[in-house]
Structure formats: structure tokens, C-alpha cells
């Protein structure tokens, strides 16, 4: 791993509602490719990515925590400023604006000062990735299926001039075929911009991620190559507690659908 990091997380400690959720979490997100953040449910993965976006209440993030995005400290910065540095965020619940149309959801994500030719090119890219969004432009986002909402949430961050994408469980709750489409689109996007990805579907992780960071009860317990980790069944089982996650059948299914890119 000789790639310089774009985001350096150092000593990140977060308490929510009085209990410590993250304790001195430190890891790097590489400036290219996908870094996967793994771990069982409730170990602090979402808390970590929400910290990057500055979405915790003031006082939740302990002093001494550091989130260096290139040469900027994100700790203490307002969420909209962080986003304007070029960090695109797709939250776990997708958070599309249900009462707004698909087109309006996308319009919100446009850089405020004019779309210009760059904007038009980005719209083309997004519509080529997700043709369904053009068809449903006038429909309220709340009427889309779960997979379509996920595509809209991804499209929203791809419209902006992103330098890092932070994506929380993009395939959660999606049918395998739809999950494959979403993962394929993500993989294409990841060729242009680095991604910090929280993902439970290890088949998707294996397909996409180069680096892996594993959290357990608020601490980093493993960092290294994603494939090395997943190739080691004992280690995977011990860290993630999911022996079944790499059953051959499931892996094959995910690979055929992801592999259509």
C-alpha cells in the first residue's frame, strides 16, 4: 500500500448519549480505490462515517480526535463546509427527500453556481449509469423502489465535484440483482474518485475493495488488504463473525451480477 492517504483518521473517540461508541480509532483512506470499513452490527461503523461528515452533536467527538482530509482538519468543521470540500455522502438510510421529485433531488445536489458544461457532462454520466432516474424524473422520490432510491442517493453525490465518497451500506436490503447493479455503478464511480465504503455484503467487498479496516466494539482490530482478509476464513470468521458470508453459492451469485460491468 504505497498510495498516499486522502483522509487520515487519528485517535477518533466519540460518545453518544453518554456512552463511548468509538475509542481512539485510527486508520487511513487511500487516495484511490475503495477502502472498506467492516465489522459486526453496532461496532461503530456508521458513527465513524458520520464523524467524517461532522454530523454528530457538538461535544460528542472527544478532544484530540483528528480527521485530516488532505491538509484540512475536519473536526469541528460544519457539515456543509465539509461537503463543499468535495466529500460526498450516501447515508445508511439513503435519505433521499421523499416529498421532492427525482429531478429536484438531483437539482439540490448541483453545485450552487451554475451547472455549466461540467454539470451537463456529469448529468450525462449519472443518467448513463442510472437510466431509470431520467425516466422517473418527475416522480416523487418517495415512490421509488429501495434500489432506485439508492441509485438516486448515489447519483446525487456523483453530480457534485467529489474528491472522496463516503458510502454507508449501499446494498443493504436490496434484492441480489439490484444490489449487483448498484455495486457495478459504484465500481465505475470508484475508478474516478476514492471511496470509503461501509458494507456487510462481503462478496461486494471482495469485488470492490482494495483495503479493509475492521472495527470491533469501537476499536480498529485489523487493517490490511481486503482480499487477504477475506481469503483467510478463520480471520474473517473471528473478526466479522460471519462464516456463512462467503458461501460459494452466494459469492458466485454476487460475482455474476457485479461482474457485468
Amino acid at each position, binding site marked *: 500500500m504505497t498510495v498516499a492517504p486522502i483522509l487520515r483518521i487519528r485517535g477518533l473517540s466519540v460518545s453518544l448519549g453518554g456512552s463511548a461508541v468509538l475509542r481512539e480509532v485510527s486508520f487511513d483512506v487511500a487516495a484511490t480505490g475503495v477502502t472498506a470499513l467492516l465489522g459486526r452490527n453496532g461496532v461503530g461503523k456508521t458513527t465513524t462515517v458520520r464523524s467524517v*461528515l461532522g*454530523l454528530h*452533536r*457538538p461535544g460528542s467527538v472527544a478532544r484530540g480526535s483528528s480527521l485530516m482530509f488532505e491538509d484540512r482538519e475536519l473536526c469541528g468543521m*460544519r*457539515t*456543509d463546509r465539509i*461537503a*463543499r470540500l468535495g466529500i460526498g*455522502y450516501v*447515508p445508511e438510510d439513503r*435519505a433521499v*427527500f*421523499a*416529498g*421532492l421529485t427525482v429531478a*429536484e*433531488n438531483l*437539482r*439540490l*445536489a448541483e*453545485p*450552487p453556481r451554475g451547472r455549466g458544461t461540467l454539470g451537463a457532462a456529469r448529468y450525462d454520466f449519472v443518467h448513463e449509469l442510472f437510466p431509470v432516474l431520467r425516466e422517473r424524473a418527475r416522480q416523487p422520490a418517495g415512490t421509488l423502489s429501495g434500489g432506485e432510491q439508492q441509485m438516486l442517493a448515489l447519483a*446525487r453525490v456523483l453530480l*457534485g465535484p467529489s474528491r472522496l465518497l463516503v458510502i454507508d451500506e449501499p446494498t443493504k436490503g436490496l434484492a441480489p440483482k439490484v444490489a449487483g447493479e448498484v455495486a457495478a455503478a459504484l465500481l465505475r464511480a470508484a475508478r474516478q474518485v476514492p471511496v470509503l465504503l461501509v458494507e456487510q455484503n462481503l462478496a461486494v467487498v471482495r469485488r470492490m475493495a482494495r483495503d479493509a479496516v475492521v472495527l470491533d466494539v469501537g476499536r480498529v482490530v485489523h487493517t490490511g488488504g481486503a482480499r487477504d482478509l477475506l481469503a483467510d476464513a478463520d480471520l474473517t470468521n473471528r473478526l466479522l463473525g460471519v462464516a456463512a458470508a462467503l458461501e460459494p453459492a452466494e459469492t458466485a451469485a454476487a460475482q455474476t451480477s457485479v461482474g457485468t460491468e
Partner: protein
Amino acid sequence: MSTFILLTATGLGLAALYFLVAAGLSLIFGLMDVLNFAHGAFVSVGAYAAWTVADHVGGTAGLLLALPAAVAAGAAAAGLTELSVIRPLYARPLDQVLVTVGLGLAIPALLQAIWGADPVEWQLPGWLNGTVTVLGARLPTTRFVLIGSAALLLLGLHLLLSRTRAGLVVRAGVEDRDMVAALGINVRRAFTAVFALGGAAAGLAGLLDGVYQGSTSPGDGTSLLIFAFVVVVLGRMGSLMGTAVAAAAVGLVQQFADYASSSLGDESVVILLAAVLLLRRREPKGRPA
């Protein structure tokens, strides 16, 4: 028949006032989760600013100049409130309630110290004091001014919310503020703008309330606020059309019940609120924007 028309026009006139106050209240709650108990005070600030201008200039010109005065005073009071005391307390909702309740008491007291506890009388130009005959009923002209103003505000707010980028930000913010910020949009600017906009509508309500009643006293805004809160709850927080319909319902029910028995007007509103809330409990969850 003419009684029916008179009651309807008066009810809708009252509804117009409720809507002017409730629209801002509802948007502020929808976007920021702030229960703004100081909103009635913004009504009174607008009313006294308007009265002062109308009284100095006099006549139709005075009344026309009172309009921007009311709007500006309401907007300024609300904008300053948001910037100075609401903004530092966004993470502390209970303290926010305390602060707005405090302002809701302090501002009318301040107005009373300046203009006195007795009502100030409005000198309306002749054309506004007259009546218009509709289907045999002689309706005071002021009713139409009230209803027209509320309709214009409804239309204006609707266009603002549906056609502009600022409106888009507000509608999205009502659903999920954090996500709006995560798209790189400064939501706080929208907070201040919505507060000021709500204050402007409240200030206008102050002017119209004075015109409607012929007088203004320091506590008028607070009395209006109680019914405006009922309207906001009935119309579902954050929904503009819901607020308009609820305002009409409350105004009409109040007028007709008042006609049936003069003590029944206010009670009927409370009964309406209770009935709707009980019925609504059975509905499945879900909140239209």
C-alpha cells in the same frame, strides 16, 4: 341567508389572520423543530410599527406605508431573534422553548411600556370603513382585505417553495436537515431566512388584526398565537396547504359556534382539535411534506 354569508365572511377573515400567523409557525417548526412561542410577539411588533406609521402619515397613504413597516418590523424582530438567541441553542430544544416563552412575555411588556396598556385606535380611511353587499348581506370591506392578503401570501409562499432553489432547500430541510447540509448547502442561512419570512407574515397579521378590530393592544399577538398553534397542529406541522385548510376550519367553526352561543366559540375550537387528534391516532404513520 345573509347571516350565513356574514358569518362565513367573518370566519374566513379570522381564518386569514390565523393563517398569516400559523404559516410562519408551521414552517419554522417543520424546518428547525423550534416551537416559537415568541411568534405572537412578532405580530404585536408588526402591529405597533404599522400603527405608528399609519398614525403619523394618516389616511390611505399612511395605511399603504404601514404595510412595509409591519412586514419589515416583523421580519427584523424574527431574524434578530433567530440570530441572537435561537441559533446558539439548536442542540438544546428545552432551553429554546424557555427563551421563546420569555421573549413572548418580554416583548409585549416592552410594547406596553412604550405605547401604554390601553388599546391604540386605528383611524381607517373611509373606503376601508364601508361595507360591500354580497347576496343581500352587508359585509365589512376589511374582511375582503384580510382574505385577499392571506390568499396572496398562500400563493406567494407556494410559488416560493415550489419554484425557487431557496424553496427547494426549505422543503428538503423540512424532511432532513442533516442531509441538506451533507449536500454542501448552508442550512443555517435557510433557518434565518425562514424565521424572517415567518416574522414578516406575522407582522402583516399584526397590521391586519389592527385594521380588523380597529384597535391594537400589547397582548393581541399572544391571543392570536394560541389559535395559530391549534391551526398548526391541525394542519400538520410543516405543511402549507394543510395549514391553510386548518385555518379556514378553525375560523369558520369558531364564528358559527360563537353565533349559536357566544360562549361556545373558543370551546368549539378546542373540541375540534381534540376530535381531530383522537381520529388521527388511528391513522397509520406518515407525514406528507
